[in-house]
């Protein structure tokens, strides 16, 4: 069922109407630029600038950061970002390019930075003028985030940073990075501190950004090497040694379990790409099955294929209804129970849907991006491979299950 059909507060109802009207006139038209599947896969400056223009427009119109206070560049509204998101979804707009900024950096900065830094950083983050990236993972530190080794040494009111971060999406466009650093080697958790560090302005001056190539052959991820980068102490978030707690704010929002709703657009691309996030995801398997011949008959007539597609349709609807239920107090026991399932569930549904799609395509799933005969422009074999990025990154599915078992079911820690 559509997000529109909700009991709004008066403020929300009025704001929704405003969004509808504004989007009717201002939702960007289709573009000749081939947009990537997700913001994390932005490759070209053309793509970036097209999407930045859109985010700027939406910000100026008040559709981005609606629930943040006016002082930090927000809209000062109450629980309105959801409204804007659902209207942008309905209007099938492109997505916002500054996805890490909006989803992780903004709430982290908002809850943990010094006041003047919030005013300095957040407006350009909301407008998309400054792209953000995240520096958590390291070669030796993937699932075990608290084992990061990249070190910050204090020199007066400066910090000198040395080390190596990986899987930093968008680093090649980013102005800023939120980064978890080790400031004390003698304590695992208490030895961590959290900073905002400059990237683009420091390239060649202590920061090197190198692209990492995915198994798909695409780039998009980077590794970032720090060689005596100097950062002012005012860019530290919260106290020295409190980095882990700050990181929890970032992760909670990344998992959709944070207090602030992330500004999200993107109906257009998501629909076109059959992403599990939209109600067109599993149904796009139906279209695929109708169009693919399987041994002389449409795959849609194969009862085993039908059964498998329906499983995904049901899982997808269940996922959507779970998100709906999280907002209904009376039908929730533990408020974290469903939000903490979000990332695990979404990434595994995506993976299984993409794998099923390749089964529906059969031998034709062997055809890749450049092949004219590839069904759906080979997006399914591509999506299947990329789905492992989602089940691995930002806490593997294995780590997600630990978190759920421990925080929701109260089982003893596995580590």
């Amino acid at each position, binding site marked *: 069922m559509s997000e529109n059909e909700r009991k709004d507060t008066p403020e929300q109802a009025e704001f929704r109407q405003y969004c509808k009207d504004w989007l009717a006139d201002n939702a960007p038209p289709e573009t000749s630029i081939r947009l990537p599947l997700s913001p994390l896969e932005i490759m070209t400056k053309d793509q970036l600038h097209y999407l930045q223009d859109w985010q700027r427009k939406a910000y100026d119109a008040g559709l981005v950061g609606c629930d943040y206070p006016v002082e930090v560049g927000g809209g000062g509204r109450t629980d309105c970002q959801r409204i804007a998101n659902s209207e942008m979804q309905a209007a099938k707009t492109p997505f916002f390019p500054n996805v890490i900024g909006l989803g992780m950096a903004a709430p982290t900065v908002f809850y943990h930075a010094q006041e003047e830094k919030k005013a300095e950083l957040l407006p350009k983050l909301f407008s998309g003028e400054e792209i953000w990236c995240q520096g958590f993972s390291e070669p030796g530190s993937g699932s075990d985030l608290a084992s990061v080794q990249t070190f910050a040494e204090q020199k007066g009111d400066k910090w000198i940073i040395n080390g190596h971060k990986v899987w930093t999406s968008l680093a090649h466009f980013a102005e800023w990075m939120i980064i978890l650093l080790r400031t004390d080697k003698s304590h695992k958790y208490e030895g961590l501190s959290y900073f905002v560090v400059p990237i683009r302005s420091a390239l060649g001056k202590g920061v090197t950004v190198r692209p990492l190539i995915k198994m798909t052959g695409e780039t998009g991820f980077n590794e970032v090497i720090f060689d005596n980068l100097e950062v002012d102490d005012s860019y530290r978030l919260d106290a020295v040694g409190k980095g882990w707690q700050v990181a929890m704010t970032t992760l909670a929002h990344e998992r959709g379990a944070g207090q602030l709703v992330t500004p999200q657009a993107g109906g257009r691309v998501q629909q076109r790409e059959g992403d599990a996030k939209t109600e067109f995801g599993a149904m796009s398997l139906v279209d695929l099955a109708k169009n693919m011949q399987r041994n002389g008959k449409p795959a849609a007539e194969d009862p085993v294929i039908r059964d498998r597609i*329906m499983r995904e349709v049901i899982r997808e609807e*269940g996922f959507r209804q779970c998100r709906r239920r999280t*907002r209904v107090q009376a039908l929730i026991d533990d408020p974290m129970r469903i939000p903490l*399932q979000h990332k695990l569930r979404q990434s595994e549904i995506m993976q299984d849907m993409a794998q099923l799609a390749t089964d529906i395509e059969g031998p034709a799933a062997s055809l890749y991006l450049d092949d004219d005969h590839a069904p759906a422009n080979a997006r399914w074999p591509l999506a299947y491979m990329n789905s492992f990025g989602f089940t691995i990154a930002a806490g593997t599915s*294995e780590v997600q299950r630990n978190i759920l078992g421990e925080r929701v079911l109260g089982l003893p820690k596995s580590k």
Partner: protein
Amino acid sequence: MSQPQDFGFGEEEAMLRDSARKFFSDNLATDALHKLVADESDPHRSREVKWRPELWQQMVELGWTMLAVPESAGGLGMNAVAVAALCEEAGRAAFPSPLLATINTTYLLAACDSVAATAALEAIVGGAAATLAVTNCAGSWEEADCDVQFADGKLSGMAAFVQDVQKADYLVVKARHETGLGLYWLPRDGAGVTVSPDAIVDLTRDQGRVQFGAAEATELTADALPALAKAMPAIWTMISADMVGAGEWELQTTAEYARTRRQFDREIGFFQAVKHPLVDAMIEIDQSRSLVYNAACAIDYEPELATRYAHMAKSSASDMAVFVSGRAVQFHGGIGFTWECYVHLYFKRQNHSAALWGDGSWHRARLASDLMDAA
């Protein structure tokens, strides 16, 4: 028509749910339930019904059997989400009673929309328990399959897999007449009605075959299929709600055991071989629960989509019930395999429910015709 974002689940519904939960745990906590239904372990035990009629009387007085009865027939005409909440609690308690059977009957009677059906609803409002005799001897889930005939005002033939028939006062019978399928109403103890109880695995229900030998019955409608089409979404949704409640009991009980039982100098919940499947169980339960309230809300606000959403709910709940029940026994280890452990009560009820009114694969096949074969 469209659904309210909150499923239409408000204070009234929450109060009903909470009082139901309290009623079941106060009056028949799991240990008492086990004493009541599992006193005889012999597989060749008697088929006598194990339930608490006086508690049933209180449930009737609380109005729970008339929740879904339209106000026009003297009922409370409450939302399906409220009824689902009640069924979820009955499932959590694995409560033995004709509640679900009677509620199902009220949905079907309301769908008949006839004077006779209204009279039958009034009998239920008056405190009668009823059940549906609409399944043939082969246990078909297809509405059109039927082994009962109706002629000259009398029923003959056989209905099977009749739920809680020994606890029911009245039956709604599906029967073939000259020109089609009709629905009929008669007392379970009426002349020409012979009930043979089945020997079943589930200890919290009773089930039986009903033989009709020229039994007089009142016609509720001469056209059963539209009435069934209208009522089945509620019937699928309510059994799913029951499974969701029972599944949550299994999850919480197993998690509690995993937090306390120690092996290899650890609580067994430490081991990911236990922890992760329990998380998967939780996810399946949450999905099913969300789909149940979505389907119930559709019955209330979006009836044109109720069938589709109910197929989703029952398919999800049936598969969940089998999976979660298996893990509950497995992770209780040796003790979980014993009669004295309460888990088997739920294992048996859940596997029974999973096949009732269509299993997961049958509902997916129906759903596929809906979503894939439309032009």
